[in-house]
């Protein structure tokens, strides 16, 4: 028999299957916690840190990523406090600075309330979310891609530097990469520190219904799970 746990997310009592993550539980009950590296069919790696939440324990709060946090009975989670929004916005800003030309990253940044980026652009075209690597290893079982190098030299690479014949050419790595969403016309150009205004109206609505998925168009950009389930 399926076992359930009951927890509180943003003051709502939520039931979740035992073993599910807090992010799963929230999404299943219609609470949108922004996320990027999370992909339903893959193991969670907690790479992007966008899905941070506050866990309240004995009156103390701890901040942690919700995709790698197991839902437990009696947990109290806050996903939309002032503090979280501020931190999340900052994280989103850093992600945009890392890959300013990615439509998906821009979309999600706007969703997190970013209107301007205060950090210098790195133009890396990869935010190291590990979606490609995890797809390749876990889903396609090809092991053609991996993270190579340490620290600031860490990057995604084929085994020994080029595409091997054990790459199954399934294309998941590119399909699920947030960099592969075609940029919209008004996207931020490199060297410009401002997100285009087209999305701001969307953010305004998202802000009004805090914590509720408003089926934002923006979600499509990064393959929000709720959008792909519909």
């Amino acid at each position, binding site marked *: 028999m399926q076992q359930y746990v009951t927890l509180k997310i943003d003051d709502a009592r939520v039931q979740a299957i035992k073993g599910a993550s807090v992010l799963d539980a929230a999404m299943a009950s219609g609470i949108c916690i922004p996320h990027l590296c999370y992909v339903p069919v893959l193991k969670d790696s907690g790479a992007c840190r966008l899905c941070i939440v506050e866990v309240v324990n004995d009156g103390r709060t701890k901040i942690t990523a919700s995709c790698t946090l197991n839902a437990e009975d009696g947990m109290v989670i806050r996903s939309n406090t002032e503090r979280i929004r501020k931190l999340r916005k900052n994280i989103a800003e850093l992600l945009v600075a890392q890959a300013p030309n990615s439509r998906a990253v821009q979309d999600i940044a706007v969703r997190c309330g970013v209107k301007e980026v205060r950090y210098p652009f790195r133009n890396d075209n990869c935010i190291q979310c590990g979606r490609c690597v995890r797809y390749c*290893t876990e889903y396609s079982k090809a092991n053609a891609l*991996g993270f*190579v*190098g340490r620290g600031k030299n860490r990057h995604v690479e*084929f*085994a*020994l530097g080029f595409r*091997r014949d*054990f790459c199954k050419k399934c294309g998941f790595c590119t399909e699920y990469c947030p960099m592969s969403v075609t940029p919209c016309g008004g996207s931020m150009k490199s060297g410009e520190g401002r997100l285009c205004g087209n999305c701001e109206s969307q953010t305004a609505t998202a802000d009004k219904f805090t914590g509720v998925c408003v089926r934002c168009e923006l979600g499509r950009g990064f393959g929000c799970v709720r959008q792909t389930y519909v």
Partner: protein
Amino acid sequence: MTALNSILKGRQSQPHLLIEVLHDVQDLYGYLPEEAMSAVAQELGVPLMEVYRVACFYKAFSLKPRGKHVFTVCTGTACHVRGAKLLIDQVKGQLNIEPGETTEDGLVTIENVNCVGACALGPVVIQNGAYCHHMTPGKLRKAIDKSRGKKKKEERAHA
């Protein structure tokens, strides 16, 4: 490839021996050739990607053939404070190569690592496995000259 086979002998299908095996391969060839990595992956049952990742992660492994003399300059915190940068500058000026490169004649390779665990003796340079403590640019220059000079003498002898 027989030497490689003897390294792999008795270690088949034991992924946890990867690093040990790579160390042996590195000792054998002085670097990790592609074919050897493929063979290791095959025999140990580790994806090639994993082998490559491990090989790239540790400074102890080299993917390119190294020179006859390998100078490893420690650029860890303690050595940095004690002037490791001067040593690197010395090398760059003297050999015209960057750390991680080998001179064109294949004689000298310069590498840098972050701490070799002998901080009190810093700045440390490891010359072909031997630790040289309290290095100065002058001492390093002499050591490099010596390792290259030997070749010149040999050449003269041959001529």
